[in-house]
């Protein structure tokens, strides 16, 4: 145990003395979360819209005020007739037109239903989808609140699910956690073991009484501790800055981070037992781990929309299962009985990676 302690202590010295490692450990996660948070954020505020009100009655005015009051929209332009809509969009000042046909209120009270039309500028498809869904949400709320008076409701011509605006945050925080833990765990550990090879110190270690198992576990432990610390920072950033919900059990979340970190670390070790130099280790981690995780784990592209061969690859990426775990625990509040499968898959992967690395470390000797 004493030799193990000495080894772990040495690893901490390596980490704390290397500026690059320290940057990757502590500056990169925060920078990534902030960049992704603001760049990938689909939250809209003060969207300029136009209003074409041919009814000009009490209910339509009330609804318009309600929409402005939400803070998401600003009425930039008042239109007179439907023919003006294309030219208003061409100017590019407004993203959407809210159109109340004539006799809006009359129809609402008499025939119990009235049409309101949302016309969006579809040249910016994401904004179009999001703004119409925001607006639909507000109108539906308005309907519900005034159910007694208008007794039926305002019909909207575009119907979408209101939850849209939260989707980006839901997706990116688990993805960023997966990516950062992978960078720290896999990249840094693969480089640190490759460095021992390059410097010739691994030869010395293999002649000493310290066993290959101890070398690997001793390499992993400092990164495990620092990675776990890091994932908490990211999750806290997600919760307090980007409003990610935390509905599930915290201990289950910690367990998920732990299992995934160990899987990433074992991948890093596996890479480093197969390469000879630090550069090769870094390159291998970037190409075989970072890129697939970015593109195929469901972080950026939904897995369902990938072609079948890529879906298969997606399933052998640890991050895919970790993202499922994080989303299920944080957003859906799922318990272990529902999500034991990704746990088992990750643990299975870890034991496979570790087994292969210890085999190849032994063979190298």
């Amino acid at each position, binding site marked *: 145990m004493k030799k193990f302690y000495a080894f772990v202590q040495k690893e901490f010295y390596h980490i704390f003395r290397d500026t690059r490692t320290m940057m990757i450990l502590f500056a990169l996660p925060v920078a990534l979360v902030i960049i992704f948070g603001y760049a990938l954020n689909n939250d809209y505020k003060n969207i300029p819209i136009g209003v074409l009100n041919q009814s000009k009655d009490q209910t339509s005015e009330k609804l318009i005020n309600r929409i402005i009051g939400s803070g998401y929209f600003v009425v930039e332009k008042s239109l007179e007739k439907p023919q003006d809509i294309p030219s208003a969009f061409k100017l590019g000042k407004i993203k959407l037109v809210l159109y109340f046909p004539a006799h809006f209120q009359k129809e609402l009270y008499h025939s119990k239903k009235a049409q309101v039309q949302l016309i969006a500028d579809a040249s910016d498809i994401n904004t179009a989808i999001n703004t119409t869904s925001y607006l639909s949400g507000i109108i539906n709320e308005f309907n519900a609140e005034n159910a007694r008076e208008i007794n039926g409701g305002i019909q909207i011509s575009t119907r979408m699910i209101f939850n849209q605006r939260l989707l980006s945050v839901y997706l990116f925080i688990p993805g960023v956690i997966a990516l950062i833990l992978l960078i720290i765990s896999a990249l840094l550990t693969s480089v640190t073991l490759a460095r021992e090879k390059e410097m010739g110190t691994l030869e010395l270690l*293999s002649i000493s009484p310290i066993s290959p198992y101890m070398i690997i576990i001793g390499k992993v432990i400092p990164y495990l501790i620092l990675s776990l610390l890091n994932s908490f920072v990211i999750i806290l950033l997600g919760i307090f800055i980007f409003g990610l919900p935390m509905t599930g059990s915290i201990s289950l979340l910690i367990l998920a981070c732990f299992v995934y970190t160990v899987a990433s670390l074992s991948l890093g070790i596996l890479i480093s037992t197969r390469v000879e130099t630090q550069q090769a280790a870094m390159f291998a981690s970037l190409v075989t781990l970072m890129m697939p995780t970015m593109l195929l784990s469901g972080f950026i592209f939904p897995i369902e929309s990938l072609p079948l061969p890529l879906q298969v690859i997606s399933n052998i990426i640890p991050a895919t299962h970790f993202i499922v775990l994080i989303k299920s625990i944080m957003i859906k509040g799922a318990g272990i009985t529902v999500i034991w499968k990704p746990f088992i898959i990750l643990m299975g992967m870890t034991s496979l990676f570790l087994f292969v690395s210890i085999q190849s470390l032994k063979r190298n000797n």
Partner: protein
Amino acid sequence: MEPVVKVENLSKKFGEFIATNAISFEVNKGEIFGFLGANGAGKTTAMRMLSGLLTPSSGQAFVAGFDVATQAELVKKNIGYMSQKFSLYEDLTIQENIEFYGGIYELSRQEIKDRSKGIVDKFQLASVKNKLVKTIPLGWKQKLAFALALIHKPKVVFLDEPTGGVDPITRRQFWDLIYEAANDGVTIFITTHYMDEAEYCDRVSIMVDGLIKALGTPSELKKSFDVDSMDAVFQLLARGTANK
């Protein structure tokens, strides 16, 4: 007296290739044994088997009384090792390197304290012991690496081209350290490319193509080949320039 290193018909095959072909020799306590040979002659393979890293294909070897094939862990505890590459961690201080090696050889806290004080005093490192190893000169690093290879008081120390890349004066000083350790009873097993260093050894073996072609004291070898330097002996054997 029982020899500290005892090798009997030791062979290692990699597939069809025979790296080490049934070599036999013995090394006594406190002896400086030069293990010479051209690159690829099988020196490294033999050394790896003796240090418990490779399992022999056939034959037997005992180091410090333990069988390298079946008691590798015990062998490892009783040997020291220093290679041509630096055996020190450059981003650790001298003191931290000492503590690390003491730690992996499971010395007690007190032993580490005493021995690190011994090393620091011997090499007059008190003023630099808290400096990172990468900032100290090459010659010092090698002396320190040698001291660390001896920190757990091994019975045998393997030196794999320990003096590569240093000037003759530093090399000479390094050999003083080797003599000192040998006088203390440590068996020295050394490979080198410098033939003047071969002259410093008590006995020398020269490997060619997996076989030991010559074994004896430097003066015996020079006499039997009728030349006046170890360099000439080596040229005759290893470079295959011997014409009978």
